[in-house]
């Protein structure tokens, strides 16, 4: 097991290097001239300004030189400087990461609780009304564009019904809690600031539901099908035969086994959540990596886009790794191999 984890850990930087290389060459073969992004159009005829800009942004070097510089910078965590914010991309990302992390974590929690819950209920009452409802609910979630469902829910629940506050992590009047983890809900709780905790939680809920809903479907489907398979196993009959009631059979015996395959879906769900987070944040003005990526994309800010992409890929790879490790820990049979 340890050797397996080690081997997988080694693969992560190699894959990242591949990813970075792809990202680099993409950025170099750009048709839109990156120069135009940093030099105002009326200055384009001024050779001094153009040369200065080229030097400042490293556009005067050869491709190979730039690649070596790029990769060695990356290794030090230097993702370059954003064209638009004029700050190091890594600093921008570090500042915005907690907001995205908080959103994705909340969405994952929502998706797991609802997905597993609906999966259990639809397996228990197979082909009953709950089963049909959860099928439709799940299907809607995976078919709705989050940037639209977010908008519609924002209109219905916030504008019309007033159940949820407007977009953003906190209102402009509320000072954010002192940064400990960067997660507003957690930090406000740690510092005992209940009003801020409640506000940040309230504002987190709607985007998290919108985002989480998009992966409820895959979780529900998998929990349902693996539960149905597990419920047909001999050891379920054994559990009943030794006097366990149906609820206990479901939770203690069936769900435990059914969750093993379900774990594998979490890496996949995570990838989906990163995708969705980009769009959800744009709708909810959530000051995270996603809205950063969208504004970078609109401004053709390559260092920023590539920085986000690299960070996203790293998160993606680590999530898959964590999933595999968790799978090994939960399944006693893997330990021996």
């Amino acid at each position, binding site marked *: 097991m340890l050797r397996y984890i080690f081997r997988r850990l080694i693969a992560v930087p190699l894959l990242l290097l591949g990813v970075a290389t792809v990202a680099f060459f993409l950025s170099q073969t750009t048709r839109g001239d990156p120069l135009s992004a940093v030099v105002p159009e009326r200055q384009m005829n001024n050779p001094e300004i153009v040369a200065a800009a080229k030097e400042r942004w490293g556009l005067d070097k050869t491709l190979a030189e730039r690649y070596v510089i790029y990769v060695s910078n990356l290794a030090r965590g230097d993702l370059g400087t954003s064209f638009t914010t004029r700050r190091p991309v890594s600093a921008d990302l570090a500042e915005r990461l907690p907001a995205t992390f908080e959103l994705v974590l909340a969405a994952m929690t929502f998706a797991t609780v609802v997905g597993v819950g609906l999966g259990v209920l639809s397996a228990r009452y197979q082909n009953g009304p709950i089963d049909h409802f959860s099928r439709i609910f799940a299907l809607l979630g995976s078919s709705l564009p989050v940037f639209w469902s977010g908008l519609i829910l924002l209109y219905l629940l916030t504008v019309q019904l007033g159940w949820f506050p407007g977009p953003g992590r906190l209102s402009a009047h509320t000072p954010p809690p002192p940064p400990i983890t960067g997660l507003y809900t957690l930090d406000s709780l740690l510092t005992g600031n209940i009003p801020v905790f409640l506000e940040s939680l309230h504002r987190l809920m709607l985007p998290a539901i919108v985002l989480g809903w998009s992966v409820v479907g895959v979780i529900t489907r998998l929990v349902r099908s693996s539960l149905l398979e597990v419920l047909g196993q001999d*050891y379920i009959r054994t559990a009943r035969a030794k*006097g366990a009631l149906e609820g206990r059979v479901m939770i203690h015996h069936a769900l435990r086994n059914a969750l093993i395959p379900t774990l594998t879906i979490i890496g996949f769900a995570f990838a989906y959540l990163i995708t969705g987070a980009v769009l959800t944040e744009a709708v909810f003005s959530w000051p995270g990596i996603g809205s950063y990526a969208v504004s970078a994309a609109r401004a053709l800010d390559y260092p920023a886009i590539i920085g986000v992409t690299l960070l996203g890929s790293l998160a993606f790879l680590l999530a898959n790794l964590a999933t595999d490790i968790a799978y090994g820990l939960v399944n006693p049979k893997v330990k021996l191999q």
Partner: protein
Amino acid sequence: MMEQSKEPLLEVRDLRVDFRVPGGYATAIRGVDLTVGRGEVVGLVGESGSGKSISMMALLRLLPAAARVSGIARFDGVDLLSLSPRELSHIRGGRIGMIFQDPLTAFNPVLTIGAQIVEALQLHDRNLSGKAAWTRAVELLAEVAIPEPGRRVHQYPHEFSGGMRQRAMIAMAISNRPQLLIADEPTTALDVTVQAQILELLQRLREELNIGMIMITHDLGVVAGIADRVMVMYSGRVIERGQVDDVFYASRHPYTRGLLAALPKLDGAREALVGIAGTPPSLINRPAGCAFRPRCSHAEAVCATAEPPLLRAGQLESACYVSDRLSGMTP
């Protein structure tokens, strides 16, 4: 027989099981009667598909929801088929233990053997502490002769050998000192030498704990050494029953005789294994008359008229129109 009270431990009357299938019901069990005395061992014999397992699953209501069960199954004064789920759960694993054919699939793969035995103990004794339950689990493993029970108790099912798993399954089944043990093909999935050990273990437990048993098997040889009485099932009915020796030496039913003929002979003669030609009838489309008729070499015209009733024939009860003709012949 060790009768302690007049009433038998288990008394089943007219047990019927139908399965809902597309376009109607398929009848799997067609009126089975069965009694088991306290401490008595009854062998339930038949080919796969004869309904022996289904009828026992039906008693404990372990069949899927598509099954419709009717009849009376009086266990120590209460009807198992009309208990609430909660009342039934006290009997399952408490006063009736069950052993299954394949101990690998019958254990939950993600829980240790110990955890599963502890669960069985604590389900029936809410006051039992975790520590006491684990101690008891080790004792139980020792009782079924599993070496190093203190270490084994923390292992997972896949770390046990087949025979050891079946011993652990038996330990779990007897953990609450049941009055009745239903063993569904307990030795079928095991090697021959291991089979003998498991049968020996069951025999010993029966004597020590005075447990009544229903031994489900397709192998009359398994029944021979352990059962007091034998019931032979075919196509969802009991077609012959009696004391074990009478069934072995004076069977009046061609089907039982076929099963007996298929047994390897004890005298070691290298006789060709005789089977019964053909396959059991389907549940949906049974032949008219005796269900065994299409495969029976003694069949006559009368056999096609109606199902033969289970009637006394010599020392046994047999459901065969031509049983008288068979009485003289040695099986």
